[in-house]
């Protein structure tokens, strides 16, 4: 089933960590397996990278703690070799870290070097995007990663009921559009031409960290945008080129978009206010952050909408 949510403010920064937690927690029943956030803070000159050095399915054997330390040390060593100066390095959990880097080179190089280390995965990389995802409900993940004070302009989130791949961090949404910075996607549905698109994109040099069909959308959109297409045009094209039933949300550094397949098989409820646009799989998620009566509606089949902050 899964639940997705998105919010974009037009009047500056708000506590989007808390907003998204409330929305996702209210949809816990749609996906108890994992919860994920893509949060957009004010862009900085530094590169922000979120990464893990082990997955939740990695065996917790006697060597586990030792591997975590060795992997983290190897990450720092490889960053140094790439002339990426670590400005700050925060430990979020035993296996998840957030680093800010003074780096002006190719971000793909960083991602490739880090993910070459066994069990390591880059969750997000960019100047404003931060992806946080883990097992458990929204309140659990929020407390674990201290998201209740995260300030920013827009965000998407996801609660997952795993159907297509494992229950682990790699299979959790949102997906970062490797190797393109600051683009992320959450998705509710199934893509039926997943393998076809995965092979095409792999032949173009892209890598995939999971077996989850949703990861395709992020990379697909990012590739189209890298060819010069706008976010909205890329999303419209996806309705023709991606098969299946889906509603997905895509975010970039300054925009948030939604797309719904031609059958309108997956829900999305939308509220467009003066200073904020909020959407979610269920209205109760919107009500979780708005305490007065509002008019909401379901976008129709084949609709694509994009808002900028």
């Amino acid at each position, binding site marked *: 089933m899964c639940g997705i949510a998105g919010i974009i403010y037009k009047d500056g920064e708000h506590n989007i960590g808390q907003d998204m937690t409330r929305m996702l927690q209210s949809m816990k029943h749609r996906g108890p397996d994992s919860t994920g956030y893509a949060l957009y803070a004010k862009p900085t000159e530094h590169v922000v990278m979120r990464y893990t050095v082990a997955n939740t399915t990695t065996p917790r054997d006697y060597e586990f703690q030792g591997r975590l330390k060795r992997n983290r040390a190897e990450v720092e060593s490889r960053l140094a070799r790439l002339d990426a100066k670590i400005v700050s390095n925060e430990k979020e959990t035993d296996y998840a870290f957030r680093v800010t880097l003074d780096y002006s080179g190719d971000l793909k190089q960083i991602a490739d070097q880090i993910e070459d280390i066994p069990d390591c995965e880059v969750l997000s990389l960019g100047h404003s995007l931060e992806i946080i995802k883990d097992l458990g409900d929204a309140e659990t993940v929020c407390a674990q990663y201290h998201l209740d004070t995260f300030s920013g302009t827009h965000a998407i989130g996801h609660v997952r009921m795993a159907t297509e791949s494992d229950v682990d961090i790699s299979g959790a949404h949102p997906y970062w559009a490797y190797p393109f910075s600051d683009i992320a996607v959450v998705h509710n549905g199934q893509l039926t031409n997943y393998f076809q698109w995965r092979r095409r994109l792999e032949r173009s040099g892209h890598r995939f960290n999971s077996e989850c069909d949703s990861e395709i959308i992020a990379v697909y959109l990012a590739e189209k945008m890298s060819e010069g297409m706008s976010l909205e045009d890329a999303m419209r094209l996806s309705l023709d080129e991606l098969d299946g039933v889906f509603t997905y949300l895509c975010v970039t550094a300054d925009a948030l978009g939604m797309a719904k397949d*031609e059958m309108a098989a997956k829900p999305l*409820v939308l509220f467009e206010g003066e200073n904020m646009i909020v959407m979610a799989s269920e209205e109760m998620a*919107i009500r979780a952050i708005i305490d007065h009566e509002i*008019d*909401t509606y*379901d976008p*129709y089949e084949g609709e694509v909408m994009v808002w900028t902050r």
Partner: protein
Amino acid sequence: MDAITGENQIVYDARGLVEPDCEVPKVSKIDGEKATFDALDLTTRQINLELRWLINEEGVTDVTVQNPGAKHSLAVGLLTRCKITFEGSLGYFGCGIIDGPEVHIKGRVGWSACENMMSGTVVVEGNAGSLTGAAMRGGDLIVKGRLGARSGIDQKGGLILTMGSVGANTGFMMQRGRQVIVGDAGHGLGDSMYDGIIYVGGTVRSLGVDCVPGEWMDSDAEFIDRKFRIYDLGTPPTFQKFVCGKKLHNYDNLEASERKLVL
């Protein structure tokens, strides 16, 4: 409790929604045959238990529910003639399988509202999600906003009237009853319908398989005028009428009337 249990009586509750010990909250203010309660801090099950308690045991016939908060599955399975007013929106599956109540929703409804509704009236002031009135068998469902996709799927009777537009595959496999759509209709209108009538005031993006324009009758105008008058919806616009072409399924002279007898 009746949650799914195995040999070892292990409760499956991965979503944390099972309420095995839920009791009637009894928080309503009762004034004769009228009652009001605030649902803000109540769960779905508590709200439904409160409604049943008021209607079935306290003799209340007019209930106002404040702050329903778009919670799911509210006011389902009510089989008594009564009035219920929701001062806000409902989530999924609102007013399902009802037989008799007059429900007024001063907000919107999510997916699958009034599924399998048998009789009564439901008036929604706002919009409605997809699958509204699915498998509906009787009664009137009036939506003053717009409807999502597949409204009236498998509809077996009753009326679905919307003052706005509708999404794709409205009336899919409709078997009986009527839909009145003041606005536009999405693609695949009336796809694979067996019977029933769909009236559209706006444009139709495309007709579904075996859905064809129907011959306008005086009784069509009389029916629409009467419903607009009853629900105070103003003057009805000009409608196009669509019916089943009866080319898709196996029909014979007797089949249609026999089928109506059993439905």
